[in-house]
C-alpha cells in the first residue's frame, strides 16, 4: 500500500463532504457520538441508505466506529475536518495578503501623485 498524499486525502474528504445529508450527519455527531438508528431518525431515508452514507464518511476518515457491547456507535474524528479548515484559512490568508498589497499600492499611488504635484 502506498501512502496517500495530502492532496489525495483532501480529495477524498471533499468528495465525502459534497452531500448535505452527510454534512448533517457530521453536524449531529459534533454534538456527541450516536448509533446508526439515532442518526437515521431525522431523515426520511431507509437504514441501508443511511448506512451507505456512514460508510462513505468512515472510509474518508471523518468518523470512527467503536465497539460498545453489541452497539457500534459512530463518533466524529475531527482531524480530517481540521485539514479542510486549513484550506479555508489559506483562502482567507490569500485575500488578506492581496489587501495588504492593495494598501501598499495605494500608498505608492499617493506618493506618486504628490511628486507629480511637486513637479508642476
Amino acid at each position, binding site marked *: 500500500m502506498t501512502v496517500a498524499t495530502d492532496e489525495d486525502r483532501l*480529495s477524498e474528504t471533499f468528495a465525502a*463532504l459534497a452531500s448535505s445529508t452527510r454534512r448533517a450527519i457530521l453536524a449531529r455527531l459534533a454534538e456527541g457520538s450516536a448509533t446508526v438508528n439515532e442518526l437515521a431518525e431525522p431523515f426520511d431515508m431507509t437504514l441501508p441508505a443511511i448506512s451507505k452514507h456512514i460508510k462513505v464518511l468512515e472510509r474518508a476518515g471523518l468518523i470512527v466506529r467503536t465497539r460498545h457491547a453489541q452497539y457500534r456507535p459512530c463518533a466524529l474524528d475531527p482531524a480530517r475536518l481540521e485539514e*479542510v*479548515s486549513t484550506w*479555508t484559512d489559506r*483562502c*482567507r490568508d490569500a485575500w488578506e495578503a492581496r489587501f495588504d498589497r492593495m*494598501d501598499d499600492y495605494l500608498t505608492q499611488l499617493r506618493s506618486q501623485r504628490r511628486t507629480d504635484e511637486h513637479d508642476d
Partner: protein
Amino acid sequence: MTDDDVSHDAVVIERSFDAPVELIWQMWTDPDHFAAWYGPDGASIPVAEMDIRAGGARRVCMQVETPKGPMQMWFAGEYREVSENQRLVYTESICDEHGTVLAPADAGVPEGHPTTTEVHVDFHDIDGRTRIVMTHVGVPGDSPGAAGWVMALDKLAFHAAAHISR
C-alpha cells in the same frame, strides 16, 4: 439541514482603506490597477480582461516564475452585479487559456473542491475612506448554486474541536 441553511456562510473579510471609494472601485475594475495588487508575491498578472457590466466576461491570467520557466494559471468568469462604487459580484472558475473550465483533477485541485467560486464586494464610503466587505463563496461540484459550504465546515470543525476537548 439543507444547503440553503448555509448560504450566508463563506470566507468574509472586512477591510478599510485610506482612499476614496471611487479609487477602490477602480482597484477592482481597472485592469492595470487590478494587476498591481491581485497577484500573489512573486507573481504577475499578464492578462486581465474585464467587461464590467452584468453578464460581462472576465479573464485573468496569473503567472509565476518557476525553475522550469513561467507557469500560468487562468481564471474565467462573469460579472453578476455591477453597481458602480457600491457592489460588485463575479464568478471565477479555473480554466485553460481559451476559457474552457477545467475539471477539478485537470485544474490540480481535489475532487469535490470548488473550482467555481463567487466573489461579492460591497463598497462603503466612510468620510472619504473606504470600507469593503469581501465575501468569497465556494460552489461545490455536485450542486451548483449551493454556495457557502466552506465556512459551514469551518464552523463544524470548530464545534468538533470544542467537543473533543470537553
